[in-house]
C-alpha cells in the first residue's frame, strides 16, 4: 500500500472511465468502505468532467493530475490542472424542489460534489495552476 496514488491523463472526457477506476482502486487500497468508494468516485467524476470541459479550450491539449492519499483521518482527492480556472463557488446551487417545468439543468455536478464529500476546497494560482481538493472522512 502506497501513501499516495497519482494519475496523469490528457484532458479528455474519454479518460473519465480511467479516472473512475483509478480512484476506486486507490480508495479501496486506502481503506474506504464500498459506499465511500462510490461517493468519492462520483464526486471525482463530476469534478474532472468540469475541469475537462472548462480548463482548456476545444482542441487545446492539456493534462489533469489526480492524486489520492490519506491526510489525518481523511481520504483526500486532489485534482490539478493548468487551464482556465473553474471556480465552483461561482456557480449557483440548483433548486431541487421546484416542479419539473422549472428545473434548471446546471449546477448538479457541483452540488453532488458538496453532498458526497465532506469538504471541497478550490484554489487557483497563476504559477501553479488550479487545485481542487476534496476530503472524505474515513470511518473510525
Amino acid at each position, binding site marked *: 500500500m502506497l501513501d499516495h496514488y497519482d494519475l496523469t491523463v490528457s484532458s479528455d472526457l474519454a479518460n473519465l472511465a480511467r479516472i473512475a477506476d483509478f480512484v476506486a482502486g486507490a480508495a479501496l487500497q486506502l481503506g474506504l468502505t464500498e459506499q465511500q468508494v*462510490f461517493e468519492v468516485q*462520483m464526486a471525482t467524476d463530476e469534478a474532472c468532467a468540469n475541469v475537462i470541459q472548462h480548463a482548456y479550450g476545444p482542441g487545446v491539449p492539456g493534462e489533469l493530475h489526480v492524486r489520492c492519499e490519506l491526510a489525518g483521518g481523511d481520504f483526500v482527492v486532489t485534482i490539478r490542472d493548468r487551464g482556465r480556472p473553474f471556480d465552483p463557488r461561482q456557480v449557483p446551487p440548483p433548486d431541487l424542489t421546484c416542479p*419539473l417545468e422549472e428545473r434548471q439543468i446546471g449546477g448538479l455536478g457541483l452540488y453532488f460534489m458538496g453532498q458526497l464529500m465532506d469538504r471541497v476546497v478550490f484554489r487557483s494560482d497563476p504559477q501553479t495552476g488550479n487545485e481542487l481538493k476534496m476530503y472524505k472522512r474515513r470511518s473510525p
Partner: protein
Amino acid sequence: MEVTSRQLKRVDLVKVNGRVDSATAPQLEAALQGITAQERFHIVIDMQDLEYLSSAGLRVLVSTLKLVRRWNRGDLRLANVPPRISEVLDLAGLNVLFQSFDNTTDAVGSF
C-alpha cells in the same frame, strides 16, 4: 456504454448498459432524440445493467422527461433501477419526478 432500443407497439424500451458520464451521455441523448423525433413519447428506460449515472446523464433524462410530458403527450419511466442509481436520483431530488418499476413488463404495461 451501450444503448439499445426496442420499438414496441406504443412504447419504446431503451436499455442502457455501463457508464453514463459526460463522455457517453451524448450517445444516450442521441438515442432518445431518435425516438422523440419520430413523435413517439412513451419511453421506458431499463436500468438493469446501468453501472453509473452522472449529472450529465441526469440532465439528459430530465430534458427528455420535460419534452415527452409536454401537453401530456407522454412520459419517461424507469425500470430495474439499481440501488446506487436510485441513490443518485434521490440525491438530485429526481426520484419524485420519475415513475419507477421493478421490471420492464410493469413499466411498459403502465402506459
